[in-house]
């Protein structure tokens, strides 16, 4: 897939090293075809998301029933006014995709932060302190693993009602398990290393040990998993929209557009196809980027 670059697993301080490390990363990015593509796609999407308000040619919510279901400009009946056509209420598809990128990214990134935080804390506690608390947390992990993500979210959202905030929280609450398991197992192995043992022997506090020795060892795997999970949550969000429990209008996300457009697939394909493409390309980019990051940062895991 991409070049495997050996990087020292332990972070070493010193600006010189940092610089060469940074250069190495850039070098490997340029060498890895997929990594570069992924990086480029993600950069573009983030750019679009951040500057969505300036980039969107039309008001994404402006309905115009006289212009509904207008095809993209290169087709008969299309107009350069609406490059990617209009949807069932006459809204500009391109503008909606641009604005929608904001919500999709927001949901993807924030829920990963929520999940990562929960997973990190519980994983550290579980791995570092062990004993009964480890047992409790691991049983909790097992319980979450036994319930399919989508089912858990479905029940949760049906109960508390779907909104941007609740979707982010629910996505976070269902996907933390991956991080917790990873963090726990890494913590377990680092904990037994000699330098940690000696640190403890000289009386370093738990907090110091975790901060100085354990976290730096976890961080690269953590970033890789988090990156890949942004892709997963974007897909999950669109599945939620299909089940009617995703982002609710007037807010717009790619998942919502795709799901709303599915009834027009046979008659006005552009309504669903473009947001679908946006999802696919973005997810593709994230996975490529994540895979490359994994090769660079963390050659241990495959």
């Amino acid at each position, binding site marked *: *897939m991409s070049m495997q670059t050996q990087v020292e697993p332990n972070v070493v301080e010193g600006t010189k090293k940092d610089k060469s490390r940074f250069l190495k990363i850039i070098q490997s990015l340029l060498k890895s*075809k*997929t990594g570069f593509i992924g990086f480029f796609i993600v950069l573009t999407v983030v750019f679009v998301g951040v500057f969505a308000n300036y980039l969107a040619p039309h008001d994404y919510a402006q309905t115009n029933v006289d212009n509904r279901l207008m095809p993209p400009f290169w087709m008969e009946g299309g107009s350069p006014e609406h490059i990617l056509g209009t949807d069932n209420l006459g809204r500009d598809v391109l503008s909606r995709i641009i604005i929608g990128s904001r919500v999709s990214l927001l949901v993807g990134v924030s829920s990963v932060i929520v999940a990562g935080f929960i997973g990190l804390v519980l994983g550290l506690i579980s791995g570092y302190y062990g004993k009964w608390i480890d047992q409790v947390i691991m*049983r*909790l992990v*097992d*319980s979450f*693993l*036994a*319930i*399919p*993500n*989508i*089912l*858990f979210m*479905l*029940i*949760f959202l*049906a*109960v*508390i009602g779907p909104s941007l905030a609740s979707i982010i929280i629910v996505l976070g609450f269902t996907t933390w398990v991956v991080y917790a398991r990873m963090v726990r197992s890494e913590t377990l192995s680092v904990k037994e290393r000699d330098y940690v043992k000696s640190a403890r022997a000289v009386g370093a506090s738990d907090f110091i040990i975790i901060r100085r020795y354990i976290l730096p060892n976890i961080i690269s795997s953590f970033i890789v998993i988090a990156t890949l999970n942004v*892709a997963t949550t974007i*897909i999950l969000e*669109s*599945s939620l929209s*299909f*089940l*009617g429990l995703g982002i609710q209008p007037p807010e717009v996300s790619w*998942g919502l557009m*795709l*799901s709303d457009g*599915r009834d027009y*697939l*046979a008659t006005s394909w552009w309504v*669903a196809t473009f947001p*679908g493409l946006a*999802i*696919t*390309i973005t*997810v*593709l980019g994230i*996975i*490529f980027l994540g895979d490359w990051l994994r090769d660079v940062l963390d050659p241990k895991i*495959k």
Partner: protein
Amino acid sequence: MRYFISNVIKIIPVLFLISLIVFILVRVTGDPVALMLPETATDQEREELREALGLNDPLYIQYFNYMKDVLRGDFGDSLRYNQPALGIVLERLPASFTLALSSMAVAVLLSVPAGIYSAIKRNTFSDLIITGASVLGKAMPNFWVGIMLILLFSVNLGIFPVSGSGTLAHLVLPSITLGTGIAAEMTRLIRSSMLEVLNSEYIRTARSKGLHEAFVINKHALRNALIPVVTIMALQTSTLIGGTLITETVFSWPGMGQLLVQAVNLRDMAVVQAATFIIAILVILSNLTADLVYRYLDPRIKYED
């Protein structure tokens, strides 16, 4: 054996936690009465029904009563069907099982050859294509794939039935829809597991002895690379069952997935709980089985108990 027993014992608190999670999720704010009665019902009608269903009791009493019944296998009656929920869920199990199994077959058929091939041909053009395809498979939401397959194979080409169940032909499109999504993930996992084997000590030794590459791969690598496939398959059980929720809805497949989606929408709490339990047990059992099979196939592996 000790390992097995200690694992079985671990299931008990897990099931208890699941019951608690599900109970909390479903009962805390849900009011099924609002959904059961038509828009035109009066307040008095609502209150009467709420009382009759025991929904006015305090939460802990509801949970206590609920656990007492669950231990007897009684999840209460489905609000939608007015019949014991467990029976309704079990009735749907064969259909979902059929779909899950054939989807897994599709996934294995696609992912095992693809994963191994791309590992052997690492960093070649074929590897890139396979990797690209598997990422694509992951990047397309299930429902989208399903609808496209229907439009292409049923409406335009007329090869397979659109929806419903009954014949093997009905099974084809849903299995492909669900199977490809899982194949994508499995291909990636199998590829890395194969790579690991190819990089391992004994393969290198075999190579260094000057054995022919094809022989090395056939004789040594494949066998060892296939062992983790069992685990990889088991890991997908949860995703697979999750996928039935959407696939069954798209194809009107009469299984547990569609039942669950509708039960959630109608706040049919008894069915949601029963089905979640059954699913959890299935997932746990399949992981346990995979674990045992894995240990059996690969005696090198020792677990810390």
